[in-house]
């Protein structure tokens, strides 16, 4: 049975992987999140993870609209589903979203190839979360990473 959204998010997110960033390009922001994900001890091969994230972006941008980006990849060197969140100071014009709007909120997700069901469920939960304008406004208005973390947790 699929895990509930709250449980999935609880397992994947930790306060140490929530950031307020000041990147000026999409690649700069993705590199930063990849590096931070690589430091948490759940990614055995950060290089492979970086390749997987950028290969996925080459297929199609993960800018899903409404100023949201969800870069994601499943590779075998990831131990379990994890995610990182960044709210950038400025909206990134070069993200190439499907609605052509600049991206300011980014959720990076990593999982194992055999975790298809939970992985898809988590991405759907995130998509549902940011569809509500109040949630997006709250995220963009956060002053600290602690506040950002609590907004995400309480939104579910």
């Amino acid at each position, binding site marked *: 049975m*699929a895990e509930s959204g709250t449980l999935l998010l609880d397992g994947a997110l930790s306060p140490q992987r929530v950031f307020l960033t000041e990147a000026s390009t999409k690649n700069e922001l993705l590199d930063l999140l990849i590096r931070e994900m690589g430091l948490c001890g759940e990614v055995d091969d950060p290089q492979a993870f970086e390749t997987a994230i950028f290969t*996925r972006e080459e*297929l*199609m941008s*993960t800018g*899903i*609209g409404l100023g949201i980006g*969800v870069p*994601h990849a*499943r590779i075998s060197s990831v131990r379990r589903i994890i995610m990182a969140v960044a709210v950038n100071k400025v909206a990134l014009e070069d993200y190439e979203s*499907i609605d052509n709007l600049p991206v300011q909120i980014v959720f990076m997700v990593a999982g194992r*190839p*055999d975790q*298809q*069901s939970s992985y*898809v*469920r988590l*991405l*759907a939960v995130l*998509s*549902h979360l940011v*569809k509500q304008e109040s949630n997006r406004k709250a995220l963009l208005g956060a002053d600290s990473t602690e506040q950002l973390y609590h907004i995400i947790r309480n939104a579910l």
Partner: protein
Amino acid sequence: MELGILLILGIGVFGGILGAWLFQKLHIPQVIGYIAIGLIIGRSGLGIIGDVQIPTLRPFSFLALAFIGFLVGGELEGKIFKQYGRQFMGIMLGEGLGAFAIVGLGTGFILWLVTGSLPASIAGGLVFGAISSATDPASTVDVLWEYRSKGLLTTGLISVVALDDALALTLYALGTSLAGVLVGGEVNLMELLKTLGIELVGSGVLGAGCGLGLSWLLKHSKSADRSLTLLVGCLLLIAGVSLAFQLDVILCAMAAGATLINHAPHRSKPLLETLRAFASPIYVMFFVMVGARLQLAAQPSWLWGIVAFYVVGRTIGKYAGTWIGAKLSKSPPLLQRYLGMGLFAQGGVAVGLSMMAGQHLSGVEVIGGLDLGSVVVSAVTATTLLVQLIGPACVKWAITKTGEIGRNVTEEDIIATLSVSDVMQTELTTIKEGELLNQVFDKFAHHDQLSFPVVDQQGACLGVISIDSLKSLFVEQDIWGWMLAGDVMVPIKDIIKASSSLADAMELMIQMDTEETILRDETSGLPIGLFDLRSAKRSVSKRLVQQQGV
């Protein structure tokens, strides 16, 4: 150097298998190959199995008869008899009495021409006629099993060969007693009838009792191994008790097999299959022994006349008798036309009866110091060789003409002959890794395919999306517009290959709890087929129906 009994058994079984293989190459039933090897290594050939070894190996032949009898009995299901019992009985009486009449009259006439003695000629004719009515169930059924025959003719053949031993024993008892009276011996008709009654009824009762006991034991048996051991033990007891009380081993075992199959059909069918496989080397040795026992010594020319007439007359009698019996009992035309062709084999019962006649009639001199008993033994030995070479081939001809060859197959038999490439779907629609989930759902909606290979730009297969894996995405329509096929595909495990045997592949799929998998080329990575468990099972069922001719 004298060969030990185990070495002789080894030579017999291996030689028999070699003979069977050679004869099968010539499209001749394997049983003839076994007998031919027996002839080569037996009394008439190299003498490896000679006068010393044959009595030692006799208990082995009785055990083989018990196995054969039990398996033949296991084919006699009551429902068949309810439907065709009258017809089979009519045919059995027709073929048995037909052979008895023609062989009896003809051989009696030849004996009268040679000896001029009417009583001795009638006595000889009666005994020859009675012996000629028996049909060998072992070699007949062996051909049916070898060619996996199934159908009305097959059922008819098994039923008739199973039943006509009893007729042969009755005719023999009556014939020998009359012969004894005619030639002035001390044979008492009432005594013989009593002995016959005890033999037939005793065999039936002992067999039925063993069948019921076995059914009870099998009900409490926890494993297939234990069940087989119980069955083999029971057959050893049947053979031993039958011999100790002078009952008929094959009839007794047949009664046990028939009782078991009708009392506990579900429990006994798999066991009979196991026994058939287990008994294979025992059969081989049995038929090699049949060949080895035959002795083709120099005989007077008139005896060859008896042999020739016996074979021709018996063949005509069996065929014509079957036709008449089938007509009178209103049997289907298929049985009228072909069943007689399957009843020419002559084996253990005939040889056994000739041995008994050899003792009963040893005091009746025919001509030039030759006694009637020896004439019967020599002639029946020679005719057995001839009809054992002709009989199985005729059985094969009959089941070929009626299209019953190869119909007795199971799904397991079909599966064993196939590999994954035989049943996999090769015309595949692929999904590119960069296609959106919207497009993926669209493909599933428009193609009759349960799984799609997900490929990269070069067409190499990266993973698979199955209808099952899509189920979790039905409710997540929010993501259909931005998730790609590559995001949701399941990686391929490559455990099953196109060249894998279907049996292994199906077992693996069940172990992995997977319904379908995509197969890809080992070097190029291109998808080459979809192996879907449900389609594979459908394909097997289709082939089974085609092969069974349903």
